[in-house]
């Protein structure tokens, strides 16, 4: 029996019943940008970078089930411009100084900005005051770069069984906190061996003493663009 298909930018993509647009596209070797989505977790739908246009509506590809015969627009000037605006909003919300950031070259936010040809932050910077937490012997937390994808929250809760991270506050004042009355990472049971320690797509959770072990210019996204590296390596084509 042949699987149902939808059209992604005019090309057919086969999917299984209940599969989300983003999952089906990936399985078919088609890239849709994403930041808060991760193959190990259910869709989150907060970053909105995976926005696609279906029947005139803009929806999150990670959280919208594929439908047979649907026409999905993703790699179009309109949708990419919307993604670029979302990226620009993320850049001005936090304090992202790529040239001085030790995550430069390994950062998905930066790599996506290159991918989507974002050339300026465009908006006024918010310059929030977000002190770093260097209390932990192995790991530094630099909240200035948080994009609230909640991957560390989810990984710590679901994979490490620790719930070291959570979000508090609301709106533009939302922020990441750790599971300690002192508010210091050193007072939690966090360890550099945790799954959550390696999941941050940007430069919030940084292992100490290895920041420049790989020189800038030879890092992950220096070698290949995000839209290639974000794709599964071994999965069959759909």
């Amino acid at each position, binding site marked *: 029996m042949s699987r149902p298909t939808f059209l992604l930018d005019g090309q057919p993509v086969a999917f299984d019943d209940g599969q989300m647009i983003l999952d089906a596209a990936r399985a078919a070797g088609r890239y849709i940008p994403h930041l808060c989505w991760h193959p190990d977790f259910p869709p989150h739908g*907060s970053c909105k970078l995976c926005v696609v246009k279906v029947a005139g509506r803009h929806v999150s590809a990670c959280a919208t089930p594929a439908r047979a015969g649907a026409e999905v627009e993703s790699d179009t000037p309109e949708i990419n411009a919307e993604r670029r605006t979302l990226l620009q*909003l993320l850049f001005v919300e936090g304090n992202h100084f790529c040239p001085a950031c030790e995550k430069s070259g390994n950062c998905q936010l930066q790599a996506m900005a290159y991918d989507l040809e974002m050339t300026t932050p465009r908006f006024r910077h918010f310059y929030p005051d977000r002190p770093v937490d260097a209390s932990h012997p192995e790991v530094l937390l630099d909240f200035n770069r948080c994009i609230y994808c909640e991957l560390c929250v989810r990984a710590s809760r679901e994979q490490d069984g620790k719930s070291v991270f959570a*979000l508090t506050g609301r*709106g533009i004042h939302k922020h990441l906190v750790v599971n300690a*009355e002192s508010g210091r990472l050193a007072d939690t049971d966090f360890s550099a061996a945790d799954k959550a320690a390696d999941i941050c797509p940007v430069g919030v959770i940084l292992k100490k003493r290895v920041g420049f072990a790989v020189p800038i210019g030879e890092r992950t996204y220096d070698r290949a663009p995000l839209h290639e590296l974000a794709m599964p390596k071994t999965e069959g084509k759909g």
Partner: protein
Amino acid sequence: MTRLAWADTMDETLQRYGRRPEYLLQMLIHLQGAENWLPPAALTALAGALGLPRARVEGVAGFYSFLHTRPVGQYRVLFSDNIIDRMAGSQAMMARLCRNLWLSPGQCSEDGLASVDFTSCTGLGDQGPPLLVNGYAIGRLDDARIDAVCELIRQRRPLAEWPPGLFHVDDNIRRRDALLAAQLRPGQALQAALAIGRAGWMAQMTASRLRGRGGAGFTTAVKWQACRDAPGAEKVVVCNADEGEPGTFKDRVLLNTCADLVFEGMTLAAWAVGAQRGFVYLRGEYRSLLPALEATLARRRAEGWLGRAIGGVAGFDFDIEIHLGAGAYVCGEETALLESLEGKRGTPRIRPPFPVTHGYLGRPTVVNNVETLAKCCLIAVHGGAAFAATGTAQSAGTKLLSVSGDCARPGVYEFPFGVTIGQVLEACGAQDTIAVQVGGAAGITLAPYEFGRRVAFEDVPTAGAFMVFDSSRDMFDVAHNFVRFFAHESCGFCTPCRVGTAMLADTLDKLAEGKGSPADLIEIEDLDRVLKQASHCGLGSAAPNPVLDGLQKFRPAFERRLMHADFSPAFDLDGALRRARQMTGRDDAGAHLPQQAEPPR
């Protein structure tokens, strides 16, 4: 108050809510009653007692405006900040209170006695300007009442000893129709529905064509049927009494004058879908209604209209509990409401699945507005056909409107659907009207050429707000106020709403300061587009409405604020010296840069 007052309250809190994590928000509200804020050690202790990560408890405590993780005054005074309240003079009232008590907004007094701030619309637009003191509303503020409040605070009189007259809230019902004129005795509607059986009752609901009164207008019978058909034995009925849309207050009046109809409507819904548990999610601003509502529930239990074998029907068991909100407009969105009801941060869920299949704790759940539920009683007593006979083709029945602003008789008006804007304006005694905001901040701004349009789902839908502005008002101020409201109330989950509403508010601030340029209007339109299209829920996608309508219908009000330059930076050079001035205690001319920006207007 001792230093560890919260510790004395902890056991009682845990006992009262059975240590169940889904009652976390209720426990935090209760616990905060001890000291007016939630000290860090209290959060740690509560997390420990519930076996929850502390960070999760902190996450919830930090989400709600009425929960405080830093000390606030023994008297916490919040001025309602809807545009209607501003028009009624709320800012002058706040300034007077601050002057009397030697306070500045947002800061706690040195002696910890009082703190003052703004809050989103408290639902007293017909009798403002209003404030909340420790959660209890005082309306119709004037100089004398502000001075009285200040004196009571200075004397440190407990709230219970304040003159009850201060807290009197009027219903201001100006026009009664089918619902407000109904004289049903408790149980009458239930008896009628029970008499025709479950299927018969659902058939009447279908025939009534009743649609949700919360704004979205989903057909109630379809929602009930979907919940009833959903797999899962434990079904839930939720009454959405989180009436947070700026300018609405009709649910407050309904809950105050005909709570029986609301509870009976919930019971009718339970009968239809087979639910055993019911919740009323009551916005924190309305907590003064709580004792009377609890008393009504108790009476209905005693009368046999709640509890086991309701109306003598074996197996029809249903009861209702009331949960309080804590200052979060987004919880009016039904999936955010369910999250909040489960004791979590009020973040809207991804849909599908919808609440009718996966609602409260994953159970099939119907969420209905207060007014929708009350109307079900009319359908049960008079039949679906009679209900459908009034209103318009696509909007059966009547609609309660909360009328406020520039008119002679603000209050609640019940009109059949199809009433024109002009007819409502005439009824409320509005003159020289230049605009009406229908449906609240998330609704639509109507200009005079549209006053022939009708209140109906197919024309001008509304959750009930009807704010009137006369020619003395500046429609830029209205849009500015609403945009700031959305920025304050954004849950912060998705990028477009979290950053976009804040950016939009900042840009309108810039215009308000007279520093806008045509480039800003282009920026505003682009932000509007991203908000509308990419937001996770209705809050973000509605946030640009006031600005879009404003730019389209009242553009001169925006353009008047532009400098005659193509671009001007938002960066305020003189403003950057503010801190230095503060530190040096200087505010003379020499400590300021010469102003180059043109003043507004």
